[in-house]
């Protein structure tokens, strides 16, 4: 019986995807894009075998002058750049960086966004007790069981925060207060003194309250505020700031990155930055979907059958919200590729000599008068790749929409 019951379900779930695939195949531009992307991936994987030259090799020999800024020719199909490097080879190697950055950043952002969005949606309106004072009665119910000892750690964090506030108040007003006690009775010094007393009073009150108090936090509110916050900060300027910070070898994080990844450190830094700012879109999408899915009968059925919260979230709810996630991964790859190229174009992204389409284009802008063809190849590649991912996203959206018919 068990096998008989399992059998039809399996067929059913296969045919959903088969149906989607059949719809997708009808979208001609999306199919063309898929083929293009597959070719691009193959080109990136086998770059060392395909590229006619070393992408960073500069010409040697007697007649150097004749090897810079060559137009397209039989030896160099796309010409040579300002350092005599073969443009075609650089384009082929650049595909590796673009696809690596695009796929890694998009997939990581979507994974993080899915998990946080699911947590926010599922636990919306069910606040956790993040903090329970040492003298508070624990039988009031102590969630979350994040891990053993969280309660003790939360005390430490709470009182550390209070100490920092008290210390900050002293650092801001201390010199004025000392001057006041030393006889300089000006209004400003008096105000500083009053401010200090108020701040310390508040800290003392909070410290006493903390012995018995509890702090409840709705995970949804926390995550939603973080999303709002990430959306508040102007993205591109923030990317510039972060990238300048992380790339610098005089900064600790920059040193770690250099030690771990060597020359390609900037690639991983860019990916990290794109993920930090990129998860919010998916999180919002998923949160909304989960909020409505958790009220449906199948969720109640799963609960009645004794499924744990993790199982309900990730076995029952998330698969039902998967369609927009798949679309957002696809569009996210295109977005990440453009953003990486934009950063590299501004000189804040991946650093030469590593060839990327973005930094090739940036380089080419300087020579727009003397060698305009240099800008064409990298710009065109970025454009077409992004176009392909956008068309694939479009096709997937139609294919995964249960309302659309064959």
């Amino acid at each position: 019986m068990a096998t008989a019951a399992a059998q039809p379900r399996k067929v059913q779930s296969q045919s959903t995807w088969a149906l989607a695939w059949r719809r997708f195949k009808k979208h001609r531009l999306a199919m063309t894009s898929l083929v293009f992307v597959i070719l691009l991936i193959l080109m990136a994987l086998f770059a060392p075998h395909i590229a006619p030259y070393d992408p960073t090799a500069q010409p040697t020999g007697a007649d150097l002058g004749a090897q810079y800024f060559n137009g397209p020719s039989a030896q160099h199909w796309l010409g040579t750049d300002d350092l005599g490097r073969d443009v075609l080879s650089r384009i082929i190697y650049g595909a590796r960086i673009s696809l690596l950055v695009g796929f890694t950043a998009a997939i990581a952002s979507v994974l993080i966004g899915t998990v946080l969005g699911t947590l926010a949606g599922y636990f919306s309106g069910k606040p956790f007790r993040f903090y329970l004072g040492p003298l508070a009665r624990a039988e009031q119910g102590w969630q979350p069981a994040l891990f053993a000892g969280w309660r003790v750690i939360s005390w430490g964090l709470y009182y550390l925060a209070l100490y920092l506030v008290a210390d900050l108040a002293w650092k801001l007003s201390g010199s004025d207060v000392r001057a006041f006690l030393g006889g300089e009775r000006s209004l400003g010094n008096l105000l500083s003194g009053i401010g200090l007393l108020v701040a310390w009073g508040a800290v003392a009150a909070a410290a006493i309250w903390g012995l018995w108090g509890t702090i409840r936090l709705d995970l949804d509110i926390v995550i939603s505020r973080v999303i709002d916050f990430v959306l508040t900060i102007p993205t591109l300027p923030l990317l510039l700031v972060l990238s300048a910070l992380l790339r610098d070898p005089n900064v600790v994080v920059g040193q770690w990155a250099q030690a771990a990844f060597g020359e390609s450190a900037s690639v991983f830094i860019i990916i990290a930055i794109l993920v930090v700012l990129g998860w919010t879109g998916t999180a919002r999408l998923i949160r909304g979907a989960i909020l409505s899915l958790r009220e449906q009968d199948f969720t109640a059925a799963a609960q009645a059958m004794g499924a744990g919260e993790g199982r309900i979230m990730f076995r029952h709810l998330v698969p039902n919200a998967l369609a927009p996630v798949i679309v957002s991964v696809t569009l996210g790859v295109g977005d990440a590729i453009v953003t990486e190229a934009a950063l590299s174009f501004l000189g804040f992204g991946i650093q030469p000599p590593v060839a990327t389409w973005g930094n090739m284009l940036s380089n080419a802008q300087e020579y727009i008068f003397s060698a305009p063809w240099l800008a064409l190849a990298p710009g065109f590649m970025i454009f077409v790749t992004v176009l392909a991912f956008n068309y694939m996203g479009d096709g997937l959206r139609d294919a995964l929409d249960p309302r659309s018919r064959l």
Partner: protein
Amino acid sequence: MFAYTVRRLIQMLPLLFAASIVIYTLLSLQPGDPLDELKRNNPRITAEQLEQLKRAYGLDQPVYVRYFKWLGRAVQGDLGQSRTYGLPAAEYIFGQRLPKTLLLSGLAFILALLVAIPVGIYSAVRQYTLADYVITFVSFLGFSIPIFFLGILLLYFFAVAMPENLRLPTGGVPPYLPSDVGSTVSLGEYIVQWVRHLILPVLALSLIQMAAWTRFMRASLLEVLNQDYVRTARSKGLSERVVIYKHALRNALIPMVTLVGLAIPGVLGGAVITETIFSWPGMGRAIFDALVEKDYNVAMAALALLALLTVLFNLIADLMYAVVDPRIRYN
């Protein structure tokens, strides 16, 4: 509505506070403090003098103390001095940079709207005709093209490849005012110069926005045209014109309002690339330059302003939504 607005305005404060903390911290973590340059330019400076300067600039204090002091001055309108330009950062940002960005982005914005809405309507009304296919295809291309590539293409075609007498300037703004000493530029020529300098960056900025909005307008109108009340309007025997412009379009414009409102801060801050390609001395370029030159007071002022604008326009978009759609009530 009023209570809602006030509540939203109050909610904005912690958000802006947090954003400014993060931006300030990131900027102060940036390598190299303002004294590095002094040391380079003046090798004979003594360690004692450096120490003194450090105290004078407040650099001997920890980051969070500096932040609160910055915040205290900022709410009084003092955003510090620009080290590169030797004038107050607020004057530099608001007086010199913001107007130029508003000019560029504002024109691009208006142009994009003026084209996108009618073209989107046209395309939706004639769905599945050749014109619709062409518009859909072109707008898909337009919103997929990266702005830096579009900018370079425009630069190449209109500033490099054109015959000499038709070439547009590659960037910047007109150098001389008519009132400058020894200037031979008349007011009319001056205006023409501005227009010529504006054409390419405005085109680059607006084409992409235009493509995105055309797609959105088309989709939004198509969605509405499938509604029952449109069928009712048609079956009442109303002319197609009345059905589309009186019944469908008004509803289709509602989501556009939000989209356009949300795009405004993005246009102001996101013009970094356009302003870089066309050397346009606006806000985006100011942020970029400030980061390169480590002029952190300017960077902080500009980024804080952008964050403020983003939250404000989010609120305005939400409020406009309620204004254009009476079904929505905020309470």
